[in-house]
């Protein structure tokens, strides 16, 4: 935890704070990093630092209701950010601040801005009004026009140390073992961890995905195809999450096949016995092949390969274990 009440990202916070103190804060920023890592939270903290002159202003920033804070994101998660939303924002940015000395625009998931929207915002990014600070967030720089990236001060946010996430969860009163498990599963994405402690469904869904995997390992072709068909119809984000959960589990298995396997090193600590069983039953080469297959399937899905076909192929590559 640091002065801005942000878990992790100490380096980024220090850099932004110093820039503000020295009056050298850039006007256009781009925060990149994996989802749920705290990009928007950091952007909001920056807004709080610039606009929060008193308790009222800080409270309004936290609720995203400050008149000088312009928060733009897709109306529905994953949908495109419409060019009208961008136009409205650009208009607001031509006006002087209402209450403070700044107007802060936060465009969350800027990679979802349509191309015409990205072009519309270029000029403002290049030369905003003196009072304006713009923060764009995106998973990486490849998803934005290069002309946008080059106009912004880039801040690459990395996952927080698992230890820091665990401490944050403990500080929120989460029991030790659960905190450790969630922290590891989060892979340093603090936003994901906080959602997991608030909403049991996150962990429950993971447990179900692992149960499915367990069943599939002993299942025949017909059942596997049936599962692939069902999964292929689900939301793309659900499919990706499923494969990512499996990937984490097989990585644990790979670790367990190694000679120096220590139980602390496992991400899925709650699945210790099953992981040991799998490590016994399969060869190192088999596990490695499986890890490659899952990663590859994730890449295929990212490139819009037919999900049904990709999943069929993956499920056929799963080893078949005798029913226990």
């Amino acid at each position: 935890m640091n002065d801005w009440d942000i878990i992790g990202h100490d380096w980024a916070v220090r850099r932004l704070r110093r820039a503000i103190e020295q009056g050298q804060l850039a006007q256009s920023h781009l925060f990149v990093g994996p989802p749920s890592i705290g990009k928007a939270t950091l952007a909001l903290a920056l807004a709080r630092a610039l606009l929060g002159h008193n308790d009222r202003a800080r409270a309004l920033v936290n609720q995203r209701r400050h008149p000088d804070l312009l928060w733009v994101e897709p109306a529905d998660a994953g949908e495109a950010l419409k060019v009208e939303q961008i136009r409205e924002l650009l208009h607001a940015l031509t006006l002087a601040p209402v209450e403070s000395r700044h107007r802060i625009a936060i465009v969350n998931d800027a990679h979802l801005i349509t191309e015409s929207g990205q072009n519309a915002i270029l000029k403002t990014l290049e030369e905003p009004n003196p009072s304006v600070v713009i923060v764009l967030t995106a998973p990486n720089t490849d998803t934005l026009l290069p002309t946008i990236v080059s106009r912004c001060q880039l801040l690459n946010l990395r996952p927080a140390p698992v230890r820091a996430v665990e401490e944050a969860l403990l500080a929120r009163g989460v029991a030790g073992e659960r905190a450790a498990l969630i922290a590891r599963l989060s892979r340093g994405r603090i936003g994901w961890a906080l959602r997991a402690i608030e909403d049991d469904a996150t962990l429950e869904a993971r447990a179900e995905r692992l149960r499915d995997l367990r069943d599939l390992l002993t299942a025949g072709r017909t059942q596997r195809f049936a599962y692939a068909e069902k999964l292929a119809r689900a939301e793309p984000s659900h499919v990706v999450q499923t494969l990512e959960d499996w990937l984490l589990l097989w990585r644990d298995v790979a670790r367990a096949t190694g000679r120096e396997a220590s139980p602390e090193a496992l991400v899925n600590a709650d699945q210790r016995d099953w992981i040991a069983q799998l490590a016994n039953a399969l060869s190192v080469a088999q596990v490695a092949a499986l890890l490659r297959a899952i990663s590859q399937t994730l890449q295929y899905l990212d490139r819009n390969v037919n999900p049904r076909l990709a999943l069929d192929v993956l499920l056929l590559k799963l080893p078949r274990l005798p029913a226990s």
Partner: protein
Amino acid sequence: MRLSCLQENLARGLSIVSRAVAPRTATLPVLTHILLATDHGRLKIAATNLELGISCWVGAKVEDEGAITVPARTFTDLVALLPADRVDLELNIRTQTLRVRSGRTDANIKGIDAQEFPIIPTFQDAATARIDPTVLKKMITQVVFAAATDESRPTLTGVLTKLEGDTITMAATDGFRLSVRSDRLKEPVSEPRTILIPAKALVEVGRVMGDQEEPVAIGITPSHGQVLFHMKDVDVVAQLIDQKFPDYEPIIPKRHDTRTIVNTAEMLKACRQASIFARDSLDTVRVLVKPGEELEPGKVTVVARADETGDNQSELEATVVGNEIEIGFNVKYLIEAFSAVDTPQAAIETTQPRSPAVIRALGDDHFFHLVMPMHLPKG
């Protein structure tokens, strides 16, 4: 908060501030609300869409101080239907609910904490300038129409307002025409100021002013972010456009080859007629100016032609000094320009068919309008 006031005062106040209420699609819910607050023994009613803010004070009998915001639509609609009688307003702080009672009506409206309402500056310090209301109104009608309504060039949606010495100058342009008017302030300003006020906000200032006779005080906030027009019981606050207005001086023609003086009303009528026929030809009209000869007076002919509709031409007498010229215009711009001329006669100054024309109010040197010509098709 507990107070009572008269329904008609409340309804009048609500109608004044209503234009500043944000549409229901606004990102901040509180912008669709109206602020009700006790203020030195009166009721202050305020609304803002972060571009334009209007505050209005009405007489009230205040028993307890306090403030709340209520949904503009619900509250305005309710007040409109109350009897013309005393209205009691009482705030339940715990539930942030406003109880409205009048005659046999007893309503409760759920509000949002007044703390969430953006701070609208009110008139406190000495005025930057003071101006006669009729003068300000005239400036607004003669200039604001030339501002751009298209948001793609935000700078041009503003009206450049210069305060220097005892002179105020307003200028607006949309890239096709330019309207400038200067006039007198009540007393000289202490230092020259130049600000860019959204045209939309000035329209509201003109509307709210009504037939007030007291001078309007103009104040610029210390942050230079807002301009405030202080009128009788009403403040209008406009968020300034934080950009540089184009320097228009260089495009003003230094000389002219032809000066044509027409009767303003006749010219306006000719343009209105022509506009009927110009609808299908991009509003283009042809204006022919012919100097008089020994026995014949000079004349101006406004011609419109559309293949589908037909054609029309109106001729009017004019005093023409200089060369004959044929020049094309967007007739809508001509109509707006001649409507802004409030003297009986107007002067049109031209040089070439491709150079801008200047329209002046004869006898009023403080108004100046420039309009770009349109390219005329051959034939």
